[in-house]
């Protein structure tokens, strides 16, 4: 289980608990985090679950695989600190992770 803090597009901060083994995207969608569309439900095919990771966390996350990397490259609002939240599985090690949701996924 990890407590993860999302900063929604309007600046609202919301902390939610997500169980181990779920993806961060799943936790966000179930808790109605605004701005995580996740149209493909985690199939790494829509790139509408993108989040920004603060510098102090970025290197602590598991590395991107090649398909996440190439999906991200073509995201409209991508930044060097972007990740696809459906590709991040929750573990205890992510407790306290802070994520920023982009203004739009389109």
């Amino acid at each position: 289980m990890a407590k993860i803090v999302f900063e929604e597009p309007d600046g609202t901060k919301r902390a939610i608990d997500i169980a181990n083994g779920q993806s961060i995207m799943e936790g966000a969608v179930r808790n109605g985090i605004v701005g995580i569309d996740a149209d493909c439900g985690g199939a790494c095919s829509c790139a509408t679950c993108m989040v920004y990771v603060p510098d102090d966390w970025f290197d602590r996350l598991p590395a991107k695989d090649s398909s996440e990397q190439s999906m991200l490259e073509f995201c409209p609002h991508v930044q060097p600190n972007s990740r696809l939240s459906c590709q991040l599985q929750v573990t205890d090690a992510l407790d306290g992770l802070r994520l920023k949701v982009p203004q739009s996924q389109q």
Partner: protein
Amino acid sequence: MADPLVIIGAGQAASQLMASLAQDGFQGEICLVGDEPHLPYQRPPLSKKFLAGELALDRLYVKPAAFYEKAGSRLLLGQRAQRIDRAGRAVILGDGSRLPYSTLVLATGSRPRELPLPGALYLRNIADVEALRARVALAKSLVVIGGGYIGLELAAVAVKLGVGVTVLEQAPRLMARGVGPVVSNFYARLHGEEGVTIRTGAMVRGLDGRRVVCEDAQYDADIVVVGAGAVPNVELAREAGLAVEDGIVVDAECRTDDASIFAIGDCTSQHHELAGRRLRLESVHNALEQARIAAAAICGKKPPAVQVPWFWSDQYDVKMQMAGLSAGHDQAVVRGNPDIGRSFAVFYLREGTLIAVDAVNRAPEFMMSKQLIAERARIDPSRLCNESVAMKDMRN
């Protein structure tokens, strides 16, 4: 108090509609009626990870029950809508009760096309997969009738579980409705390499116990599953006198010819600008997009921009991602080698304009093409097939 907004069919379109209505500031009461005993769930994993036993049931659900019940909304699951009384503005449920509506949204989806083969199974909902999984665990052989993407995903999962699988497709090639011949040939090779027997041009005549009888051969099977396409659930709409033409006819706002009734998802037929004609799409993207469009119309908000349609299919370690509508192309351009390995893309052009892509383990081709198709970009085919030109640099 005003009558509620009623949604018939509790699938992915319905779930997205409720989320988008909330975002768009909808204040009224919502009543969601669904005939399955489940909260809205995602169907794609049914023929993929859920079938394989790699994804638990609760991870299929889009949202928790509380989401559908908050703020005066009601969830009526396991209840079938029998009839629409348009004059009286009410839905008649299976138990005879009347559910008045102010606005009605039909999100009834589609169902498998049935073949006259008694004893054959189908793959559409959770109950189907649960029945199928129990049988697959005990089976030595499976015949899949229909070489569309659902049948092929099933074949991929079953052969990995140690079942002998034969796919019988009546057309001369696999997934003929969805992809071009180059891609069909690739999938025939892929499944062959993985140990699945593929028979195209196979005319199934009947099912005799555990024997599938074709025109020129017979196949014994412990399990027979039909994946022969889907038919839209349009009966409620047709009986209520709404315009139906393959799917329920809707305008650009997803409104039917009755101004207080909308329709979204697999059950609809809508004019598509990219195709230049009316068509019925069966995809998650279409269900979500139409839900967002209908929510905006209901709330009087500006509609979201129409996106390029897209779809995906997972078979073995191969992810195919498709964007656009390839019907009517006059040129197909291949990038990469479809005869070796498992990674290539086919671009479809009409009069020099990119209209669609089938990308096999090629996320950049898929993502970049989505943008180019939306821009109606004209791309030099010699660049498209030249792997030394990166997809990022494909804009001429």
